[in-house]
C-alpha cells in the first residue's frame, strides 16, 4: 500500500509543476503589460514602472521569476488582491467553506438519490421505473444548469414564495463565523429561525448543483449493477439459495460500488465548474463567484492563484479517489 501511495504521489509532481507553469504563464501571455496588470495601475511614469517591475520581480529573467514564484508559493504567499488588497489565500480560505458546504450538500443529494435509483433501475430493468428514471437521468445530464437554476427561482421563489432568491442566510441574523459552514454556525448561535433560514437558502443552489452529478451517478450505478449481476459469483450466490435481497445488497452492490465511488469522486471537477454557474445565479459567496468576479474585474493575482488553488484541490481529491479505489479494490493495489 505504501508503494502504491508513493507511486501515486510521485506521479503527481510533474502534473503539479505543469499547473504552476500554467498559472505562472497565464499572466505573461495576457495582452498588455504584465507589470501594470499585476500591480493594477495604469498610466504610470517610467520611474514608477521600473519600481513596480523590481518590486514584482519582473526585472529578472523569466526562469528566475518562475522559481521566485514557486518559492513564494511554497511559503504560502499567493500575492494580494488588487481590489481588496488582502492576501489571496486569506480571501480563498474565507470563501472556501461556502463552496464546500454547497458542494457537500449537492454530492449528498446526488449520492443519496442517485445510488438507490440506479440500483432499483438495474434490478427492475426494462420496467417503467427503469425507463422513467433513466430518461430523467438523461434529461438531467443534458441540463443547462444556469437555466435550471433560473427556472427553480421562478417557481419556488417567485411563484410559491417558499425560498429566498439569493445569499446564504437572511440579513436578519448576525452571528460570528466559527466554522464557516452556515448550517453549523447558525445552530451554534442558538438564534431562533437562523438554522431554518440557512437551510432554505441552501436548498435550491444544492439541488441545482446536484443535478448533473445525480444523473451521472444514477446511470453509472445502473450499468455497474447490471454488469455485476451477470457475474458468476452472483449466479452462484443465487444458486445456493441465498435470498435475493442479500444477493443484491451484499454480493452485487458491494462490487458495483467500486466504479461508482470513483464516479462520485470524479464529480468534484464537475462540481467546481457547476459552482461557478450556481454561485453566480444565486449570489452565493463562494470561490466560484469569486473567480468569476475576479476575471471580470481583471483582478489577475486572484485569478492566477485561484486557478492554482482550484486545480491543486482537484488534483488532491483525485488522488484521494485513487487511494480509496485502491483500498476498496485490492486488485488495483497489486497491479
Amino acid at each position, binding site marked *: 500500500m505504501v508503494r502504491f501511495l508513493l507511486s501515486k504521489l510521485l506521479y503527481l509532481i510533474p*502534473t503539479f509543476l505543469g499547473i504552476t507553469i*500554467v498559472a505562472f504563464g497565464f499572466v505573461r501571455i495576457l495582452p498588455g503589460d504584465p507589470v501594470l496588470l499585476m500591480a493594477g495601475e495604469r498610466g504610470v511614469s517610467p520611474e514608477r514602472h521600473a519600481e513596480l517591475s523590481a518590486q514584482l520581480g519582473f526585472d529578472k529573467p523569466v526562469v528566475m521569476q518562475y522559481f521566485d514564484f514557486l518559492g513564494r508559493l511554497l511559503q504560502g504567499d499567493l500575492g494580494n488582491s488588487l481590489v481588496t488588497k488582502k492576501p489571496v489565500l486569506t480571501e480563498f480560505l474565507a470563501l472556501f467553506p461556502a463552496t464546500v458546504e454547497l458542494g457537500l450538500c449537492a454530492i449528498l443529494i446526488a449520492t443519496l438519490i442517485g445510488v438507490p435509483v440506479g440500483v432499483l433501475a438495474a434490478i427492475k430493468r426494462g420496467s417503467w421505473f427503469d425507463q422513467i428514471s433513466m430518461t430523467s437521468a438523461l434529461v438531467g445530464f443534458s*441540463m*443547462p444548469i444556469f437555466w435550471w437554476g433560473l427556472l427553480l427561482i421562478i417557481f419556488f421563489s417567485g411563484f410559491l414564495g417558499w425560498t429566498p432568491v439569493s445569499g446564504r442566510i437572511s440579513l436578519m441574523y448576525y452571528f460570528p463565523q466559527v466554522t464557516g459552514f452556515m448550517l453549523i454556525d447558525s445552530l451554534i448561535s442558538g438564534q431562533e429561525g437562523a438554522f431554518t433560514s440557512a437551510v432554505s437558502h441552501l436548498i435550491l443552489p444544492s439541488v441545482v448543483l446536484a443535478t448533473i452529478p445525480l444523473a451521472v451517478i444514477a446511470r453509472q450505478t445502473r450499468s455497474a449493477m447490471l454488469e455485476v449481476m451477470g457475474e458468476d459469483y452472483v449466479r452462484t450466490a443465487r444458486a445456493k439459495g441465498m435470498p435475493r435481497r442479500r444477493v443484491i445488497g451484499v454480493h452485487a452492490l458491494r462490487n458495483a460500488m467500486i466504479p461508482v465511488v470513483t464516479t462520485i469522486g470524479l464529480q468534484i471537477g464537475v462540481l467546481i465548474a457547476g459552482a461557478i454557474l450556481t454561485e453566480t445565479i444565486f449570489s452565493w459567496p463562494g470561490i466560484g463567484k469569486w473567480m*468569476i468576479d475576479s476575471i471580470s474585474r481583471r483582478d489577475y493575482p486572484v485569478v492566477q492563484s485561484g486557478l492554482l488553488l482550484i486545480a491543486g484541490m*482537484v488534483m488532491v481529491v483525485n488522488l484521494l479517489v485513487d487511494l480509496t479505489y485502491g483500498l476498496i479494490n485490492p486488485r488495483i493495489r497489486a497491479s
Partner: protein
Amino acid sequence: MSDTVQLSSSAIRRQMLAEFWFYFRQNRGAVAGLFVFVLLVLTAIFAPVLAPHNPTMQYRDAFLLPPVWQEGGRAEFLLGTDAVGRDMLSRLIFGAQYSLFIGIVVVAIALVGGVIIGLIAGFFRGWVDAVIMRVMDVILAFPSLLLALVLVAILGPGLTNAMIAIAIVYQPHFARLTRAAVMGEMQREYVTAARVAGAGNLRLMFKTILPNCLGPLIVQATLSFSSAVLDSAALGFLGMGAQPPAPEWGTMLAEAREFILRAWWVVTLPGLAILVSVLAINMMGDGLRDALDPKLKRS
C-alpha cells in the same frame, strides 16, 4: 482484378452500415434524438426562410410582449418579444445556427488536434508519450469551464475565442482515447504486416491504424458536441461567449436574467432550446455507443 477488390470493399462497407443501422435502430431514444437533430439542422439551414422577423430588429411598440396565447400577445410575435422588442421565435430559430456552428467547430478542432497528438503519443511511445500525456494531465486538472473562462480572459470575450477555448479544453479527451486505441491496435498482426510490407510511419499511423480506432472517437465526438453546446451557452450566459445582440441562446438567457419574475418566456424558451438540442444529441450518442462499441452490444 482491381474491380473485384473495389466491389467487395464497398459491399463490406454497405454491410457495416447496415449492421450499424440495425443496432442504432434498436435504441428508440437514439432514433428520436436523430430526428430532433435533423430538425435542428434543417432549422439552422433554413433560418432566413423560417424566421418571421429579423432576429436583431427592435420593434419599439412591442417590448416584452407575451406569447400569442397569453393575454396581451400579438399574432405577429408567436412566442412574444424580449426587453428591447425583438421577436423571440426568430431569435430562437437563428440561435440554432449558432449552436450547431459552435458544436461543429469545437469538435472539429478538438478532434483533429486530439487525434494527431494521441496518434503521436501512442505510436512513438517513450519520452514523447510521457511529455504529451503529462501536458494532457495538466489540462485535465483544471475544471473545464474554469479553464475555458481563463482562456477567454486571455484571448478576449467573443464567440471565436470561446470556441477555441472550449476546443483546447476538450482536446485531451480525444488524445487519451486515440492513444489508448492506438496502443491496442499496435499489437495486432495487421500492423506488423503493413510495417513488414514497407509502410512508412505516416501511412501506418493514418491509413492503417487510425481507421480502426474510429468507433470510440465518434462516440466521444458526439458527447463533446453536446457539451460544447452547453459550455458555450454557459460562457455566453456569463458574458464571455457570443456578444449581444447575437441571438445565441446562452447570451439571450443572460440578457433575460433581470426579467425572470416578470416575463417567463424570455427565460424559459432559450433554455428549453438548449436542453432539447443537447438532449437530442446525447440520445443519439447513446445509440451510437450501443451500435459502435462491441463490448456494450451484449448488455
